[in-house]
């Protein structure tokens, strides 16, 4: 087990190094950093000075090693646009994204698994066919369209919910939260459902498929004939076994969740990391983009490794050798 954890950590580290190399290439070779740092109208001498001052005259590998060392210390340089350290700029917006993503995961997991179990019990009941039709709709509608349609219905037509920004927030130390005010919660509803909708449909279908296979197994029949209460048969004997692929999927979809938070944040002008990334892309703000990529990679890898290790603990059937 310990060797497995160690190996996963080393693998994660290798991937992180690869990502840092790609980031370095982006930073160094898309757009000329010398021109960006010295200004468009700098003289030749001034450019040479900048080149030396930032070590851009050094050989390729020296520059890369320096990039990695600086990255490990959280120094990614200053944003070309706002002239403040890129990492600070992104970390300031981290809470908004984390709160949005967590809400979306909770919504999609609870509703997805709940409805999936419900549907699997009576697959041909009219109500459940309706839910399945809804889930087909759910996986056929891209996130950005969900967002716009929700805005059209709930913000424009009904005027019931706000459609942009985070509303009032409260600071707890460095963490700026929207969970504690009524306005914060109401601003969260539409974006969280937008981000969670696709995954909700995916998890619903996965749970239903898994439950359908498992409810036909012999040990479920045994459990029923023992006279166990339905609650026990369905949840303890059925769902527990059907849940394994669902949990794996939730973990694996985390990268997708980050990608779609970019889309959702743009539509709802949610002041998070994704919104900042897209603005930086439009403004060719390389340091912010690179920092975003490194941070996203770190988060995704950490989650994947944690899920893998938990998985190994929870499922003794799997042996790692």
């Amino acid at each position, binding site marked *: 087990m310990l060797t497995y954890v160690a190996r996963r950590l080393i693998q994660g580290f290798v991937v992180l190094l690869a990502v840092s190399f790609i980031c370095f290439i982006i930073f160094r070779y898309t757009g000329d950093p010398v021109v960006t740092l010295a200004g468009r109208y700098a003289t030749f001498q001034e450019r040479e000075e900048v080149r030396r001052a930032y070590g851009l005259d050094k050989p390729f590998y020296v520059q890369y090693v320096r990039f990695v060392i600086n990255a490990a210390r959280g120094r990614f340089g200053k944003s070309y646009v706002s002239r403040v350290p890129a990492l600070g700029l992104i970390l300031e917006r981290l809470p908004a994204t984390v709160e949005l993503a967590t809400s979306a995961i909770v919504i999609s997991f609870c509703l997805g698994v709940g409805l999936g179990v419900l549907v699997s019990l009576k697959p041909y009941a009219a109500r459940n066919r309706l839910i399945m039709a809804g889930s*087909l709709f759910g996986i056929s509608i891209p*996130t*950005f369209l969900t967002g*716009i*349609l929700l805005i059209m219905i709930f913000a424009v037509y009904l005027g019931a919910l706000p459609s942009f920004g985070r509303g009032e927030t409260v600071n707890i130390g460095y963490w700026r939260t929207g969970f504690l005010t009524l306005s914060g919660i109401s601003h969260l509803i539409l974006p969280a459902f937008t981000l969670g909708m696709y995954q909700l449909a995916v998890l619903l279908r996965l749970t239903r498929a898994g439950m359908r296979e498992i409810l036909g197994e012999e040990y479920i029949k045994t459990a029923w004939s023992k006279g166990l209460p339905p609650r026990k048969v369905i949840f303890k004997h059925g769902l527990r076994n059907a849940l394994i692929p669902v949990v794996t999927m939730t973990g694996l979809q985390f990268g*997708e969740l980050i990608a779609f938070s970019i889309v959702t944040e743009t539509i709802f002008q949610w002041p998070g990391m994704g919104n900042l990334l897209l603005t930086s892309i439009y403004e060719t703000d390389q340091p912010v983009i690179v920092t975003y990529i490194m941070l996203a990679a770190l988060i995704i890898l950490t989650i994947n490794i944690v899920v893998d290790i938990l998985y190994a603990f929870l499922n003794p059937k799997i042996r790692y050798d």
Partner: protein
Amino acid sequence: MTKRFFKSKIAYHYAHDPSAIVGSFLLLFFILAALLAPWIAPQNPYDLEKVSLSDFLKPPVWMEGSDPTFLLGTDDQGRGILSTILYGCRTSLTVGFGVVLIAGSFGIAMGLLAGYYGGLLDSVTMRLADSLFSFSTTLIAILMLGIFKQSGVLIVIVAICIADWVRYARTMRGSVLEVKEEAYITAAKATGAGDFRLLLKHLLPNAIPPIFVVLAVDLAVVIMLEATLSFLGVGVPLTEPSLGMMIAIGKNYVYAGKWWLVVFPGATLILLVAGINLFADWLREELNPKIEKQR
């Protein structure tokens, strides 16, 4: 051969499954609409001589202030919504089928080789596949296109393919590992079949069925992804028609009550993708030996 197909179990199941029929006809309908767009579209929305700014934001024909030339109304540039949708379907389907073809072939080849040879090739390919998969095709495509600031249908296809082949490679590898243990493979080896013959003649055809489901699902996912990229402004350029971009433009007029700019292209996108998903659902049940048809 054709006669045999029509008498087969698959054809019988297909003909008795309404959702499979509806799904495949929806897809067929949009493919035809896209192919015939230059002939059936009322106007060419990307021919500047045919578009007049004075026609901007006209509502659909059944509403007041409409123009009978524009069945579904016009956008802010005076382009007919119906015509732009027809041309937009071409982009969606070109990207969709392009990615499925390129990423599919590459992924199948990689999965086949990794599964058959194993060893270093296998572990390197699969580690790479795992990493690309966890970063997700969407995130990689947004970053690639955003950073290199190139746009065009071909570039979008390439950017999506970079991570998308992984879906095919993983499925193919898993399938090859199962098939590899079958007796007929050992028999073929014993009769002296070379690697090349074994891979193409024995492993590929027997290991490929699970890929069909991946292919169908992926087509739907890629069409949505192209729309998403174009919506964000990193996909196809402004000069190309795209459903995603139409919706991005329409978004600016949502608060002004000009719903038709979003609703019609949005509905087209949903119907197209839902059609493919319906068909994929049927295919999945059909090819899954664990679920016996209960009808």
